[in-house]
């Protein structure tokens, strides 16, 4: 190799009397190492630039590493989420047996990593009475049992092969005869009797309400579905055929996964009743038909022919290898793959998620590599032009082009050898810190319970090194080639890199007389710059004109910095803006919500009288909730509905295209007949509305029956959906609340809309078909139960003072707001609001005091809602949602800010290298100017003028680029989030300007210090080689 060098440099001629044979020892080696040493010394001589370049390479490599590591960590987070909820299994073999498992062990050999078996003991039907709230069947599965004798080498032992159910209370069954039930069965009292299955008695029986310690007796059988063509198929968890209900007739519920639906179902192989002790309750699992009970792994009994399912994972390296194994095992198919997990593990050919993340990573990586290439190219270009004379000298001494190129590439190798490992370490450390800080946020996004931690795969380390080395090579290649082209002549000529630009040549060509260079008074050079700023400005301008290329590089690096800084800020704003849009609370911003309704069983059984339990309990419940520790404010709104007739002045003029009963929430006909939403608020809220002047003074007493009517509605006119004002705020009138009349022989009537008119429909109680239902105009089917004075108000005014949200009020027309107290005390209003099968829901809203424990308050609210005939339906923890949203947006911002900051650092390094080196190259020129009598002040003004020019052009270009980027980002964001404002980011621009100008100033000060540090005498002496 070295000998080849020598031949390249001197051709095939022997050099002097040098005999090739002698060269084998010292000479070529010396030749080679001389260039390496030369390179190292050049780097040492320019310590600061070398350091900046190494830092630049390290930052770029680090960023690349961090981006890739973040992506793999996220992928790992998703995979862990999948492992946590679904287990680590790759293949599921339903209806397997010992023979097949033996074959599996034989085929897979050491590749079989983990194996677990779960058995399906069959299903027991509930009695027809219980089926209503317990489901048709209770399916019984054993807990999965992991088998021995597998490799268990994939490092996923923290997760189960297939997860056991999540315990809610008690413990999991440990021996035969123990069972856990789903939590919805807790407290249920099971009645014996016939099941929904013709001719089969209930297979689940127990004494008293179900609790830990109860005994439950199960008769387990196997569900078989029968088809029209005479075939039949087993139904159940382990057969893969799922029907949640008993199949009777041709209209099965659930998911018909056979071409033709089954026509009937039987229960076969029913076992003798066996008694189990309930040891715990678990969260319901929706996978199996009906609810599932779990027994211990070794439980005996169950229906005849219990079914086994095997779940296993392998150490197969590819999807192909795995499918081949499965194919070998079950040539006919019938094995399911855990595609979700395998996708996150990057094993499936369907890499949708992988591609999304991959594209994300590729885009970021591309930006980083581009920034890095720009930085490194600049650094090398400067390094080479600085040493033009040296290369010329080396060339005159006989260095070949190849050798000169080599010195630059050796330089690149040295910088890379330091910068790349440093960058990898920095990137990994940085990503680890970022994940440590934001792991919770990622976990929320990914949906896993545990935090997302840094996870690095070998391929991403390899890819980082490869990309970094490639970027380095590409960046160094152009300057290296240029170094090779330096001729010996360049070593002799001074100022070789100063060539007049085409424009300057044209200017000079036009000048004839020597005096053309001077202004009319001969006191100044010609030109605007000299007229405005004297000699310093003239010199600055000329420098920029002559070395336009260098100026462009400097301007571009400044502009890129500005763009990156502004973009970082803008993206930050947009993301926080988007989070604000998505999670911004209403006017009455509450933290927690609990909602209740009348107990469905009492409602269904027609036990309710003319009163609503929810409405009766509301004030008491609110009082209990308000007294909970940590509650700073509480309010309720009871949501009900009524048929009503608006007085003439309140009938809205509907815009064209809005059809009552079908356009959004507009349910009022031209004569004022309406299906109204009614919101009943607590006393304090009503008082607050009165104090704010929303409720007229006459109606301020919440015991007086009155109502407010929302004046606007969100509705579609068939073309566009939008907010429409239907009434002038302040319009007053009355509304008649109508109660439906009962008809003998018919059930409760229903109000339905057709052709823009409502009508009452009566269905006979003993009707076999709906064709005998009676349609009656509203007038004839109702009587006026109460007449209420009404004032129209804007929903936005209302929302500010009560817990009824403006959005809710705008959702329906007409929407009435009334004091709950007055309604409760008015028999007529109650009759109208509670007729038919209407059940009001009550929403309790709570604002928390600082530092209150939201989960605890929510628990106590649930207890406080306990009232006769009232059922608590659910809760919303807005605080937790906001916390999650904040965690997510914080996470995104941390990563974004880090990314932008590092990119900006790269840009800053670029600016520093370009500006500082450009100045330092002109040491001699500066010395010449000063020896010719240029004072310090004039000199500073000249430098200032040059920098001002760079800065001005850089900032203008940067601003334009940043605005373009902002526009593009805004458009992209607007696709998914509305309401984002587009504005010139003055703050970010100002900040970016300040940063860039500061870096520019620092670079110049550094460079001038350095040139001044050189003795003026030394600088003049000349050939600083």
């Amino acid at each position, binding site marked *: 190799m070295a000998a080849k060098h020598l031949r390249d440099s001197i051709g095939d001629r022997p050099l002097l009397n040098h005999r090739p044979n002698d060269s084998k020892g010292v000479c070529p080696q010396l030749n080679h190492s001389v260039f390496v040493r030369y390179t190292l010394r050049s780097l040492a001589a320019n310590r600061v630039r070398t350091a900046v370049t190494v830092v630049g390479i390290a930052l770029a490599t680090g960023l690349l590493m961090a981006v890739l590591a973040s992506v793999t960590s996220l992928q790992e987070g998703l995979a862990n989420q999948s492992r946590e909820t679904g287990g680590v299994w790759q293949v599921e073999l339903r209806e397997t047996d010992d023979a097949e498992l033996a074959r599996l062990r034989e085929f897979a050999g050491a590749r079989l990593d983990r194996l677990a078996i779960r058995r399906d003991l069959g299903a027991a039907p509930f009695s027809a009475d219980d089926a209503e709230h317990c489901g048709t069947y209770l399916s019984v599965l054993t807990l999965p049992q992991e088998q021995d004798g597998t490799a268990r080498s994939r490092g996923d032992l923290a997760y189960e092969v297939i997860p056991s159910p999540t315990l809610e209370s008690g413990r999991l069954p440990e021996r035969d005869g123990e069972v856990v039930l789903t939590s919805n069965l807790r407290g249920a009292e099971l009645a014996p009797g016939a099941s929904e299955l013709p001719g089969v008695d209930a297979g689940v029986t127990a004494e008293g309400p179900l609790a830990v310690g109860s005994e439950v007796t199960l008769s387990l059988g196997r569900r078989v579905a029968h088809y029209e063509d005479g075939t039949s198929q087993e139904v159940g968890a382990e057969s893969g055929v799922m029907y949640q209900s008993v199949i009777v007739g041709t209209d099965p519920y659930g998911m018909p996964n056979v071409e033709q639906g089954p026509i009937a179902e039987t229960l076969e192989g029913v076992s003798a009743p066996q008694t189990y002790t309930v040891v715990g309750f678990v969260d319901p699992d929706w996978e199996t038909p009906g609810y599932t009970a779990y027994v211990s792994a070794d439980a005996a009994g169950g229906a005849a022919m219990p079914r086994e399912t095997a779940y296993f994972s392998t150490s197969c390296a590819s999807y192909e290898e795995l499918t081949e194994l499965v194919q070998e095992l079950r040539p006919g198919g019938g094995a399911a793959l855990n595609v979700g997990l395998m996708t996150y593990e990057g094993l499936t050919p369907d890499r949708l998620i992988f591609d999304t993340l991959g594209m994300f990573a590729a885009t970021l990586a591309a930006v980083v590599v581009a920034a890095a290439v720009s930085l490194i190219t600049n650094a090398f270009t400067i390094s080479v032009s600085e040493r033009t004379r040296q290369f010329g000298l080396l060339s005159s001494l006989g260095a070949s082009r190849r050798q000169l190129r080599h010195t630059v590439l050796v330089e690149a190798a040295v910088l890379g050898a330091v910068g790349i490992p440093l960058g990898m370490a920095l990137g990994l450390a940085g990503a680890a810190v970022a994940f440590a800080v934001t792991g919770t946020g990622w976990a929320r996004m990914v949906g896993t319970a545990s935090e997302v931690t840094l996870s690095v795969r070998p391929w991403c380390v390899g890819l980082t090194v490869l990309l970094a080395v490639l970027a380095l090579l590409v960046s160094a290649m152009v300057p290296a080639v240029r170094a090779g082209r330096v001729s010996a002549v360049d070593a002799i000529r001074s100022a070789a890199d100063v060539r007049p630009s085409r424009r300057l040549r044209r200017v000079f060509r036009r000048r004839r007389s*020597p005096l053309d260079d001077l202004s009319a008074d001969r006191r*100044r050079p010609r030109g605007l710059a000299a007229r405005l700023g004297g000699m310093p400005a003239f010199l600055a301008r000329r420098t920029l004109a002559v070395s336009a290329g260098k100026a462009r590089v400097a301007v571009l690096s400044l502009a890129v910095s500005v763009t990156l800084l502004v973009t970082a800020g803008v993206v930050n704003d947009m993301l926080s803006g988007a989070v604000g849009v998505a999670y911004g609370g209403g006017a009455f911003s509450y933290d927690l919500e609990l909602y209740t309704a009348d107990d469905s069983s009492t409602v269904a059984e027609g036990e309710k009288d003319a009163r609503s339990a929810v409405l009766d309990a509301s004030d008491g419940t609110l009082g209990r909730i308000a007294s909970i520790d940590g509650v700073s404010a509480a309010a309720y709104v009871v949501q009900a509905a009524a048929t009503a007739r608006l007085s003439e002045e309140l009938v809205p003029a509907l815009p064209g295209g809005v059809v009552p009963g079908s356009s959004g929430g507009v349910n009022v006909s031209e004569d004022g007949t309406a299906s109204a939403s009614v919101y009943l608020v607590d006393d304090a809220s009503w008082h607050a509305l009165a104090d704010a002047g929303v409720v007229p003074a006459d109606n301020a007493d919440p015991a007086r029956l009155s109502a407010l009517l929302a004046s606007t509605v969100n509705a579609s006119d068939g073309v566009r959906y939008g907010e429409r004002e239907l009434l002038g705020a302040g319009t007053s009138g009355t509304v008649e609340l109508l109660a439906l009349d009962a008809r003998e022989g018919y059930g409760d009537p229903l109000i339905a809309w057709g052709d823009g008119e409502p009508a009452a429909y009566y269905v006979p109680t003993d009707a076999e078909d709906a064709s005998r239902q009676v349609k009656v105009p509203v007038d004839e089917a109702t009587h006026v139960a109460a007449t209420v004075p009404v004032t129209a108000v804007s929903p936005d005014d209302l929302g500010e003072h009560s817990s009824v949200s403006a959005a809710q009020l705008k959702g329906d027309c007409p929407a009435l707001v009334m004091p709950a107290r007055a309604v409760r005390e008015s028999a007529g209003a109650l009759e109208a609001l509670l007729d038919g099968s209407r059940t009001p829901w009550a929403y309790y809203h709570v604002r928390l005091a600082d530092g209150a424990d939201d989960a605890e308050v929510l628990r106590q609210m649930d207890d406080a809602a306990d009232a006769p005939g009232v059922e608590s339906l659910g809760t919303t923890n807005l605080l937790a949602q906001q916390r999650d949203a904040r965690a997510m947006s914080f996470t995104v911002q941390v990563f974004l800010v880090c990314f932008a900051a590092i990119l900006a650092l790269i840009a800053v390094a670029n600016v520093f290298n370009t500006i500082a080196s450009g100045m330092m190259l002109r040491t001699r020129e500066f010395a010449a100017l000063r*020896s010719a009598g240029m004072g310090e002040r004039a000199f500073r003004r000249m430098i200032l003028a040059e920098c001002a020019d760079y800065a001005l052009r850089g900032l203008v270009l940067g601003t334009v680029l940043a605005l373009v980027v902002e526009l593009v980002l805004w458009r992209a964001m607007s696709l998914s989030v509305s309401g984002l404002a587009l504005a010139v980011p003055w703050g970010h621009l100002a900040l970016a300007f300040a940063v860039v100008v500061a870096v520019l100033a620092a670079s110049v000060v550094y460079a001038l210090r350095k040139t001044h540090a050189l*003795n003026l005498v030394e600088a003049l002496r000349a050939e600083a080689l």
Partner: protein
Amino acid sequence: MDILQIEHLTKTYGTGDTAVRALDDVSFTVAAGEFVAIIGSSGSGKSTLLHMIGGVDRPTSGTVRLNGEDVFQRSDEQLAVFRRREVGLVYQFYNLVPVLDVVENMCLPVLMDGRAVNEKRLTNMLHVLGLEGREHHLPNQLSGGQQQRVAIGRALMNAPAVVLADEPTGNLDSRNSAEIMSLLRKSNKELGQTLIVITHDEDIALTADRVIALEDGRIASDTRVR
């Protein structure tokens, strides 16, 4: 009349063990219109002496008086004014400003001083220096000899009290060397320009009125040639 008085000029570089005494108690005077050659081996202190006279470097001790005024009593800013008005410097490696053309380089000291360029002197100078037709070339478009002529033009343009030339022919061939020296002599003879030239070349030294030989920072001999 002595235009230049140098008294006990000493310059030390570095400190302690590494201190080098480049000039050691040098004193001499130069009369107006005199042409002095300074010779000496490398490291004898010739260039240091020239830079002191030119106000480019400050001495460790001693004084330099030009037209009776102490050069180093001036501030750095005043020293810059001194350099552009009172002295003209010519270097071995020309040291032209690479971004300025010939005329701009020549007029640089005048323009930096904010004075009007003497048109007659400029055209005359361009003629004498043989730079006609090259007025609007940048330095890198000129040969070495031409660049040195521009440097001489720049030094003479302001009619300084003294022209200081540091090996002005050191980088040129014999034909160009002869031309440059004849130009400098011509300025001395015809314009009465005081001239101090550092040189290695004995032939050049012998064309001067007086030859001062430096040795280890001291004056070894001071010989009047004619």
